[in-house]
């Protein structure tokens, strides 16, 4: 069964360092999402891509966070510099091209700890 792949599963980084997460969506899924989930809370949408274009990045802290999906397939989310408050689970999800309100498939997430 096709899955959304994310790496790494766990990352510990020091405050002020740079960190990057990678996501490979299900083949054929043009829509890709990055979420941040703080422990005990629901996922918060950071950025949504349609192919290689950003559809929504209104909640992305652009002074330190960046996201790209250069060829419209896999995607990278970067934080530079990391802050203690960035400790969270970062989830990637994908869904079928051009379809709103459809099922999203999630990866296992990257658990980030900033020390």
């Amino acid at each position, binding site marked *: 069964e096709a899955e*959304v792949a994310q790496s790494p599963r766990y990352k510990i980084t020091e405050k002020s360092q740079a960190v990057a997460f990678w996501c490979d969506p299900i083949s054929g899924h043009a829509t890709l*999402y990055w979420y941040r989930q703080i422990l005990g*809370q*629901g*996922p*918060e*949408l950071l950025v*949504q891509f349609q192919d290689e274009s950003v559809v*929504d990045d209104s909640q992305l802290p652009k002074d330190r966070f960046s996201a790209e999906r250069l060829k419209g397939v896999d995607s990278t989310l970067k934080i530079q510099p990391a802050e203690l408050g960035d400790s969270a*689970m970062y*989830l990637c*999800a994908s869904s079928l091209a051009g379809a*709103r*309100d*459809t*099922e*999203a*498939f*999630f*990866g*296992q*997430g990257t*658990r980030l700890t900033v020390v």
Partner: protein
Amino acid sequence: SQQGEEDPQALSIQEGENATMNCSYKTSINNLQWYRQNSGRGLVHLILIRSNEREKHSGRLRVTLDTSKKSSSLLITASRAADTASYFCATVSPPFGGGTRVLVKP
């Protein structure tokens, strides 16, 4: 925001009992989805109900939708320990509320 908000925040039941959780949302929707998240894992899609549907079943899951009240409910019948998880409703994109944490005790 069109995100759903789940109620209650937490629920503890005995194995074999039914679990019911509710979701309220603010604006018109095309459909509403329910997801499950086991501790430390990604979310798994459970069921999608369209705005013209009132009830939908999938195995031990029953979802209802009342668009006039902008609310939905998820019922898990004959719960099992493996149903212990957080449950989220989602509308559009999908953004999420805080979820309902369900604990099923053996």
